[in-house]
């Protein structure tokens, strides 16, 4: 089906319509084994090597719930300020699909484990509280490889090949309440929410939260209502949103598309849509099939989960400092402005700086190195800061050597180059290259006299009171000493030599 509608430019769409967004995020838990069987839940096994009667849905097999998966889910619920149900059940969601071995999914329906929480985010200095409707558990499906169609797509494929290794991996689904009042920021709020949720999950250590590998997957709900309308519009659910950037783009393009539908006097259809990474557009995922009827009913093969209050409190005690609290603490400790903190966050440098500080550097030094020299390196090589071949401890060591006066910044940059090139630890590189600041005046004066002799014109200017010209002579001396000189001392000596000495130092 081709859609011929032309999208409305974003600013025009927002001028006429108020968006309402909601997000459903599936998170693969990082348990050792699957949700209902003892098969390893790790990535990378040969196809169908990590399956057993239970996760293959063989006749007669029965599920038994993984205690860790329940504990991870409760911890996620607590971190998102949810109430933990004192009694809840799993349900069966019935529908046929080749990659779902039992042709039903064990999920939670009307009795989720965690309900009614929130997650606070800040966008452009504005606070948003995103309501959390529920956090519930379910099992993942197998993975299909489509053969015969164009570019391995399901459409037009001749047949498919199914690997059930992923089948039964525990999933947690975090569903937000509709988020009102985002206005023009809707796409950015959506992205900021997923970013913050990912940070929370990472801090909890319950998932490796890699969107590219599918361990964190988002469905984005979007609807529009004409400004001033008393009712919300019909929402669509956009699937296949596999990166933070895509979350933002998907909301944006749905707003532009729905605005066009409404402008043309049409009706938005409640449906699933698919996001396309290449075009940034969504297309209808509707099939001709009749409406789904999942025939939910309580899973008779599993008994209810009834977490005792003491158990929940024990789990609450294991919660780490959450990212927002940690950011606030670090900002205060480091004395940074909101802008500085945002810059750190955007560069993905917060943890690196924190670890560098922990390793002994001052917050200012740590920030300087990670946002300066190292960010430049990351940009040039097109990698993430965290992926550079230098550890926070090494950065702290370099900063410490500079602070001791044994190296200057120029030399320290050389040491860093060496570390990034894999030539060893900072101390090894200093030793191997014989790097040290030369501050012995006799050695420096020899180099200075040579520089004055070579640049008589510059020397004359200085003698005539133009101290600013000293830079050229300092550069020459630094060059002659291969950067090992203490530049400040060199400048002093040059000025002294040419009769412009400051009374800064006792002889």
């Amino acid at each position: 089906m081709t859609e011929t509608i032309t999208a409305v430019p974003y600013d025009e769409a927002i001028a006429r319509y108020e968006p309402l967004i909601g997000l459903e995020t599936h998170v693969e838990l990082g348990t050792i084994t699957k949700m209902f069987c003892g098969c390893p839940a790790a990535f990378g096994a040969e196809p169908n090597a990590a399956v057993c009667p239970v996760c293959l849905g063989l006749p007669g097999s029965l599920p038994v719930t993984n205690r860790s998966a329940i504990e991870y889910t409760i911890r996620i619920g607590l971190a998102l300020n949810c109430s933990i149900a004192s009694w809840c059940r799993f349900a069966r969601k019935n529908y046929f699909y080749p990659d779902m071995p039992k042709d039903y999914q064990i999920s939670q329906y009307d009795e989720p484990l965690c309900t009614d929480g929130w997650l606070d985010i800040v966008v452009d200095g504005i606070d948003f509280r995103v309501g959390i409707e529920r956090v519930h558990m379910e099992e993942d499906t197998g993975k299909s490889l489509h053969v015969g169609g164009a570019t391995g797509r399901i459409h037009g494929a001749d047949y498919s090949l199914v690997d059930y290794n992923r089948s039964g991996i525990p999933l947690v689904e975090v569903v937000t309440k509709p988020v009102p009042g985002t206005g023009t920021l809707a796409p950015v709020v959506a992205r900021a929410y997923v970013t913050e949720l990912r940070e929370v999950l990472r801090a909890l250590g319950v998932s490796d939260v890699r969107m590219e590998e599918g361990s964190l997957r988002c469905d984005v709900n979007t609807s529009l209502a004409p400004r001033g309308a008393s009712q919300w519009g019909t929402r669509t659910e956009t699937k296949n949103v596999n990166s933070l950037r895509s979350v933002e783009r998907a909301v944006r393009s749905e707003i532009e598309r729905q605005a066009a539908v409404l402008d043309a006097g049409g009706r938005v259809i409640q449906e699933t849509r698919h996001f396309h990474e290449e075009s940034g557009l969504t297309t209808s995922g509707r099939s001709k099939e009749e409406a789904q009827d999942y025939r939910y009913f309580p899973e008779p093969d599993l008994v209810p989960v009834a977490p005792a209050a003491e158990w929940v409190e024990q789990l609450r005690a294991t919660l780490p400092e959450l990212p927002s609290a940690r950011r606030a603490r670090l900002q205060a400790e480091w004395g940074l402005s909101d802008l500085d903190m945002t810059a750190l966050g955007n560069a993905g440098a917060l943890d690196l700086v924190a670890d560098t500080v922990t390793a002994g550097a001052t917050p200012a030094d740590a920030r300087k190195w990670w946002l300066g020299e190292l960010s430049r390196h990351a940009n040039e090589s097109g990698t993430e800061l965290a992926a550079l071949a230098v550890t926070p401890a090494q950065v702290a060591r370099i900063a410490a050597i500079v602070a001791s006066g044994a190296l200057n910044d120029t030399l320290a940059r050389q040491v860093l180059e060496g570390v990034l090139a894999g030539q060893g630890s900072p101390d090894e590189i200093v030793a191997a290259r014989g790097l040290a600041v030369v501050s012995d005046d006799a050695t420096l004066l020899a180099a200075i006299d040579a520089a004055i002799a070579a640049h008589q014109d510059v020397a004359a200017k200085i003698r005539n009171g133009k101290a600013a010209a000293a830079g050229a002579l300092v550069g020459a001396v630094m060059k002659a000493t291969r950067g090992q000189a203490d530049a400040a001392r060199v400048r002093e000596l040059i000025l002294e030599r040419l009769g412009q000495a400051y009374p800064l130092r006792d002889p």
Partner: protein
Amino acid sequence: MDSELTRMTAAGIAALVAAGEVSAVEVAAAHLDRIEAVDERVHAFLHVAADSALRAARAIDDRRAAGQPLGPLAGVPLALKDVFTTTDMPTTCGSRILEGWRPPYDATVTGRLRRAGIVILGKANMDEFAMGSSTENSAFGPSRNPWDLSRVPGGSSGGSSAAVAAFEAPLAIGTDTGGSIRQPGAVTGIVGVKPTYGGSSRYGVVAFASSLDTPGPLARTVLDAALLHEAMSGHDPCDSTSVDAPVPPVVAAARQADVSGLRIGVVTELNGEGYQPGVITRFTEAVELLESMGAKVTEVSCPHFGYALPAYYLIAPSECSSNLARFDAMRYGLRVGDDGTRSAEEVMSLTRAAGFGAEVKRRIILGTYALSSGYYDAYYGKAQQVRTLITRDFEKAFEQVDVLVSPATPTTAFPIGERADDPMAMYLADLCTIPSNLAGNAAISVPCGLAPEDGLPVGLQVMAPVLADDRMYRVAAAVEAALGQRRGHPLLDEANGLGEARPGQEGRR
């Protein structure tokens, strides 16, 4: 000796094997010969595993020779309902859709039998996916009642009951979802037991209705049933609904066989109209017998039992519609119509249409209906509420009495074909047995004589509270002993479907 071996009790065989008076191999061979001789007519087995049975028997003999301890049923042959997974035999559930399936794992019960030294002779016939009360729904043809080959042996564990009643095996295992052990036990004149739900593991039992399915023993004597009950039961960490409690002392109770001082309640609602007169006659006699042995008999009303059948025919089909979804032609079993042009959905639909029989399809559709949005509350939801009412009836009753009794079935074995086209008539066969499935409590059927009008066996049902399985064994063993003494010979000596009623005995009453 061979024919005597097949007529012996399991306890008797185990004693001979343990004493070295007969080898397990001889015992197995005698039963394999018996199967060879009569199963063409009885059709109790879907698969006979002669080689693996003899191998298992030889292992028992070796163990004995090596002086290793043997379990109380070591060397005793058994027929295993084809709903239990077995690594060395196919598992079909009486269905074309699973024809030839070789499970890669053993059911927990299968494993326990093997470890107990029980010799599995083969897989017993059954109604397709345990749906039915006659084994006529087996895709591989019905089993026949050894009392009268033109009649059904009950179901769905009809292959199991027929095998035991025809002396092809002294023991069998079945599953009871709405009466599928007790009803076939009753109509073939043997003992059939539904343990407390969760008392025996469902792991590796191909599910029909998960919240009701209960594996249990069939045997010719109450003690044999108790011995098998103990061997197969106990907590299983692979089944979340398995009860983590010791197995009730059923063997001791069967040996006790004493009802003096026991309070026995006759269920008002499981009696009277709609019941075959001869069934009521024998049932009433059995109650009088219990009273004469010192039991205190009272009548107890369970007002909601009349709603058990409708509730069951909502709950069981609902669960089965979901449980049987996995038979979709993708990973194992039959695949029909995969010609390269059809979609997975079409192949699934064609396979399921070709692979399932009429009763299975009927129940899947009924269950899909009962669970669909808009109907769930009116049907499935209401049925679950009725389940609560029935459980409360039991709880109230067990405040007044120790056990409840009723006929096991409203009629004796009916002729093959009689109810095949009338599902409602067929469903009535489980009228008396269903309440205990809904409430999860234990129940047994023990033979209490032959109906005068047709000379066919009648079963007495004894129901006990959850996890008080031992109580019903006490009652059943007492009835068995008293009737046996009065009769002077085993009831099955009178079975003549195979033309072998024992000479010298009085004819049918």
